[in-house]
């Protein structure tokens, strides 16, 4: 079984690859590995929008559709929303998402 790896790209271009147990959210994978640029203040309860990421556009469709709550919160992130914006606490990693690249915005709060 493949352990999914996710690549976090900082605003400055530094890439950090993190492996995560399947079922872990991208937010928890990042905070657990100490990736700077993902805050996740509410612990993944969709309360704070401080785990905003830009998903690599060609893999955006592989993610489950976002809930209306997430959609609304993305209108109010600290850094600008883009079409490929998601909250990383809502991205559950599995084998299919292996190698996913997530770019972090310049600031989260």
């Amino acid at each position, binding site marked *: 079984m493949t352990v999914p790896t996710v690549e976090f790209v900082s605003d400055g271009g530094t890439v950090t690859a993190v492996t995560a147990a399947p079922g872990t959210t991208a937010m*928890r994978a990042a*905070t*657990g*590995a*100490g990736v*700077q640029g993902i805050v996740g*203040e*509410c*612990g993944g*309860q*969709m*309360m*704070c*929008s401080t785990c905003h990421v830009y998903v690599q556009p060609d893999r955006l469709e592989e993610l489950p559709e976002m809930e*209306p*709550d997430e959609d*609304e*919160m993305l*209108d*109010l992130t*600290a850094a600008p929303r883009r079409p490929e914006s998601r909250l990383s606490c809502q991205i559950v990693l599995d084998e299919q998402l292996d190698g996913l690249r997530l770019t972090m915005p310049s600031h989260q*709060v």
Partner: protein
Amino acid sequence: MDPIVVVGAGHAGAQLAVSLRESGYDGPVLLLGGEGEVPYQRPPLSKAYLHGGNASELPFRPAEAYAALGVDLETGVDVTALDQEAAAVVLADGRRLRYSTVVLATGAEAAVPPLPGTALPGVHTLVTRADADALSADLAATDRLVVIGGGVVGLEVATTARKRGLDVVVIEATDRLMGRMLGADLSRVLLDRHRAGGVDIRLDLQAAEIVAGADGRVAGVRLVDGVVLPAGAVLIGIGARPRVEVAAAAGLAVDGGVLVDQEFRTADPRVRAIGDCAAVVGPDGVQRYRSVQNATDQARRLAALLTGALPVPAAVPWFWSEQAGCRIQIAGDLASADRYLVRAGRRGGTTVFGFRDGVLVGAESVDDAASHLAVRTLLAHVPPTFDDFLDPDVDLRDLVARSRSATSLSG
């Protein structure tokens, strides 16, 4: 070089250790936790974790991550005293560890009312993971829970216990739920939602005694009117007391928390305090917020102060709770408002906005995360006025855009 010693490895202490490194500090950091566990998140303890959640989901980061950061983490360590003259912390096992700076991040403990029976088996408070495990075991062994106190922890546990199939009664001494945090309107919404969810809520009622059964375990709660509510488990949720014993014994000023200035300094500049145990003296008086956001915000700001990194502006205070199937969010300082406006969210839910002298100062929401987030942004930039809200169709996102651009123009 003596380390920065952080006493307490909860949200504030663990964040401080990490933020020191992120701020560029490369000296030794010693993080001392009183519990024998890797630092973990507390909000799930009354919710997902209590419902049967996975313990591996709780830690902020794995134990190895602290070593990788060069943070020396010791858990299961009780600090019993400060020796300010020697600049050392004294541990329960007799060790004395010198510090360059010591930061008290000892948090808070549950308050317990002066009632007979609070020490009986089956009577719980909830602050730590061990508390949650003990409560969970008792919830599995009974079908009746009585909660004393209609505040956040009590109501979140009541919700979880209902989900686990128990009969739940909440007794609250005042005339409304979450009275210290929520205004009357949302408090009533919350009451309705809990009752609709099958929680039996009794307001304006006080417990007189927690009574034991023949087996010596808790059997019920006797109320002041003499009625006995049967219970196989009791949760006490009447608030928290900051843990200030070490500071007080060292002769540092304590008043509803360890008194510190706005740079988190006690009278001894090498002793600082942050998080739930701290009370910050500022121009508007003494402030003590008890929230995850406050703990982590103070930790980030102290890390910047200790390392000379760029100052981190104070975050807008915010707080959340999930209970009775609703999401409650509070931002800013609603208590200081002199005028209120209630508005429906775009997708249902309600937000109460508060204004002082015509300017937005805070808001509380039920099921309206977008309005909540908007208010946090508005308060961090140029807050709008009451008049800005007079148009019932005004879109908060437009106000946010305007507020942000006003800040960048002026800044």
